[in-house]
């Protein structure tokens, strides 16, 4: 719904997992002219929403009607034996729910981008649980915030200024009462913003985490340094962590996807659990795509599992490494791909992409991306949170209602509507 004066307040941003919902979006005619409060990326996403748009459905590069494109998509789906449905993290929850229905109906595999970002985080949590925190909770209480293997200044530009470097009910002066540290392997934009930068050697995250656990438990170590940090320095870090009133650990792909992967996360979780014997700590992954948390959530309630789900037997099975998109492609198992709101050609390893190029691809996305260059069928979609409504989940689990602030381009409909058309046609074929 557009408001009378065409100024929309409290609009959630649909770029990263911060889901900042204080944007003021101004619309003039069919253009978004201003985004107040958003970070530079957010401004670009809203004001530039018409850039690089795919406006018409195509089959093999030729412009067709939406109905024809859906018809061809259904042909591909019906003739495939092992369809892979992938993406979903940059769209709203209802589209995801339709994707699971299609996967179930066709006995396919459905996976979201988690498998190439925080998949190991989930595996770590499956080993050890997860003692999380929440963003306002951190603002009110946390006197020590640690970023580990994350560069929020670049990837989550308002994480620090909007949520962390803000006064809270019990942290009156965020610059004095709250310390922000960064653990990373190199100096970054974030390292210049923090109170303390702890530079560790690449590939030593697991050792550093386990050392901290040992020191927090009061164990003595017979080495002089770990990960390039001297034991006395690590002891000081451990002591500060133990004596914080409320600590929060935000970690990024630098921890999740580096050497050790889910073992790193497992160790980080156990470190936080250990610290709770002394004081209060929680941790949180810095989720990238704005609704990848939502993709995990919807997939979990509908299928029981957060990603990498196979419906070949008529019920959901979960097996990361087997039903994850990269593995399905790299093994040459998928014989067709339905990609929704993601760009696997740009992000997947070469082996997976080379198989992807050899199979029919249906691509649903608002914009041209690298996957649309190789797709047999391209169907343009409305941008969720700008051109259609829906719900998404913030990195700490808070659900937010996304706004429609402007009409989509003529003839362009939301992901969920496109998927419903495909489902209806597939159901008819299967009767």
């Amino acid at each position, binding site marked *: 719904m557009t408001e009378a004066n065409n100024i929309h307040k*409290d609009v*959630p941003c649909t770029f990263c997992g911060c889901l900042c*919902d*204080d944007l003021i979006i101004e619309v003039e005619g069919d253009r978004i002219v201003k985004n107040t409060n958003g970070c530079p990326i957010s401004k670009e996403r809203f004001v530039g929403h018409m850039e690089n748009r795919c406006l018409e459905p195509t089959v093999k590069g030729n412009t067709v009607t939406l109905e024809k494109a859906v018809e061809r998509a259904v042909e591909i789906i019906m003739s495939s034996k092992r369809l892979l449905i992938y993406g979903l993290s940059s769209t709203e*929850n209802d589209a995801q*729910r339709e994707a699971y229905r299609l996967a*179930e109906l066709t006995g396919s595999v459905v996976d979201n981008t988690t498998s190439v970002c925080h998949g190991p985080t*989930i595996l770590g*949590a*499956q*080993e*050890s*649980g*997860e*003692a*999380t*925190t*929440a*963003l*306002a*909770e951190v603002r*009110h*209480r946390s006197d020590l915030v640690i970023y580990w293997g994350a560069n929020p200044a670049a990837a989550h530009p308002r994480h620090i200024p909007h*949520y962390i470097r803000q006064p809270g*009910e*019990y942290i009156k002066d965020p610059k004095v009462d709250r310390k922000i540290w960064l653990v990373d392997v190199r100096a970054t934009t974030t390292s210049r913003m923090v109170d303390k930068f702890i530079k560790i050697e690449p590939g030593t995250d697991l050792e550093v985490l386990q050392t901290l656990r040992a020191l927090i438990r009061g164990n003595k170590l017979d080495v002089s340094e770990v990960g390039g940090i001297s034991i006395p320095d690590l002891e000081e870090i451990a002591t500060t962590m133990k004596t914080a*009133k*409320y600590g929060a650990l935000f970690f990024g792909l630098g921890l999740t996807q580096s050497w050790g992967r889910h073992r790193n996360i497992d160790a980080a979780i156990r470190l936080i*659990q*250990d610290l*709770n*014997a*002394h*004081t*209060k700590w*929680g941790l949180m992954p810095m989720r990238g795509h704005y609704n990848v948390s939502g993709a*995990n*959530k*919807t997939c*979990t*309630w*509908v*299928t*029981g*599992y*957060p990603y990498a789900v196979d419906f070949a*037997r*008529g*019920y*959901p099975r*979960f097996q990361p490494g087997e039903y994850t998109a990269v593995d399905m492609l790299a093994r040459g198992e998928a014989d067709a791909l339905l990609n929704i709101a993601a760009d696997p050609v740009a992000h997947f390893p070469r082996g997976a992409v080379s198989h992807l190029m050899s199979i029919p691809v249906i691509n649903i996305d608002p914009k041209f991306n690298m996957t649309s260059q190789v797709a047999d069928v391209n169907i343009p979609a409305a941008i969720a949170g700008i051109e259609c*409504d829906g*719900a998404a*989940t*913030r990195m*700490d*689990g*808070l*659900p937010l*209602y996304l706004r429609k602030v402007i009409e989509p381009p003529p003839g362009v409909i939301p992901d969920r509507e496109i998927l419903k058309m495909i489902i209806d046609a597939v159901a008819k074929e299967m009767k």
Partner: protein
Amino acid sequence: MTEHIVLKNGTIFDPMNGIDGEVMDICISNGKIVESAPAGAKVIDLKGQAVMAGGVDPHSHIIGSKLNVARLTSPESNRHHPYPATKKTRSGVAGIIPSSYATGYLYSAMGYTTVVEPALPATKALGSWEEIEDIPGLDIGMLPLFCNSMISFKYIEEGDISGLAAYIAWTLKKVGGLGVKVVNPGGTYAWAYGKNVCGLDDEVPEWDVTPRTIMTGLSEAVQKLGLPHQMHFHPTNLGKPGNVYTTMQQLDALKATKPSGKKKETVHLTHMAFDCLGVVEEGMANWKDVASGGLTFADYYNKKKHFTADLGQITFGPSMTMTGDGPFQYSLYMMSGGKAKWSNIPVDVELPGGAGIVPFTFEPKSAANAVQWVGSIEFALSIKDLWRVFLSTDHPNGGPFLKYPLMMSWLMSKKQRDIWLEKVHKFASERSTIANIDREYSLNDIAITTRAAPAKILGLEKTKGHLGVGADADIAVYGFIPEKTDLASNPDLILKYFTQTQLTFKGGVQVSKKGIVGKQLQSRVISVHPELNEDLDRRINSELEEMMSKWFSHSFSNYPVPKRYREHIEMPTVIDATSIQA
């Protein structure tokens, strides 16, 4: 879909209308039970079958972030329990924490038609409404948590019960809640500081409130609003040996709240199995000395009439503990020697400290587990008034709701109890009076404690929990001849017949037959919308805008659940609370 149905010749158990095993016809028209159906109504012969109202479950965790965190962190709970799709129904998993569709189907198959999620973080309610879209076949209610919220504390600290009531009213309307849930008042908040509370007058960090002022303040606010369901209460000291005494103290403290309407009960004590552990004579409050508190609590229950209770029966085997009681969950993790998967989920402003989740296996050979198991059974068999109690496992805490038939068998069959007493640790017999109890629940008793009483406790007795004219046509038909089936001597039959109904009707629509769901019905949401007078409404809007804008990390205007998710499924009951002065 047939709009009019006559169910002929069934043997009816409808305790709310005083019917105990009589052969009668039931007429259904447009989803309701009516006096007579028009000519041409579909006739279904239920000769030789037992008929009850649809089951009502006021305490089962089936929705929300804690459930999703549990599923996400414990795929092994569901891996070996697939639930395949059919032409008419969706697939899922059906272990101890079933997926959404399977949850709806499994309840339908068991003859349950109304379920309440008893722990809703209101600020996350949007996600719950989305989830309900995928849980078919039920009427669903949700109880928002108010017990550790900074906003509640502000009103309680100021002794402003009108403000507190208005905050509750505002929240119930904005997110579609049914009542007020209280979990470890002050204790979960203290957990944000790594602490807990245990005594009624313990300090809560940063605030001039105590467990006593929080629980009494909230119960008074509930009465002031005239909510149909009394305050739903999880006390402090959950899961601690000897807590039956502190639970009774807390219930005593709540006795000061005067009922505002006809209903005498002002508090519902939930999952008593976890709240009413005793200790042996001259014993200490530790696990070594734990004894059943069932009889002690039954005596108290028989004397004091201001509260209702449910069992929270533990059922042995794997379970998933999840409560808004963060420090309790942490203590379970510590009991595992720090080995268990411990999850903790704080919620901005409303639940600092956070809810917790720990997978847990109740072992028959564990003395502590056996004693806890026997306590709630001893209680249920020692109380006089069954109208103030309902059966629950606090799904999935004491075990999944799929084990309700097993719980029923322990109550309905002395033989079954004796079989199980052989299997479990001897303390179950030695530290309780169970061996001397011959009482067996009748079918009428089961109908009271699984439909009629819970409907009354929720304040839904007009339309739920009975088969009289005007009730919703939510009906469970069980495939046995009550007159000829000796369930007490054949406990396996209890499991067989109560796990799968012969037929289940929801709102006059047949949803399942012999446990197979053939009709996927959109669930509805039961909520309460208290109307405030203009002055109080204006006041609460401005005060909440100020507090929420200051304390939450998202915008005030994005707090309510938008109509788009609600209007097609919500059935709000508007109640008049305009007499509350601003």
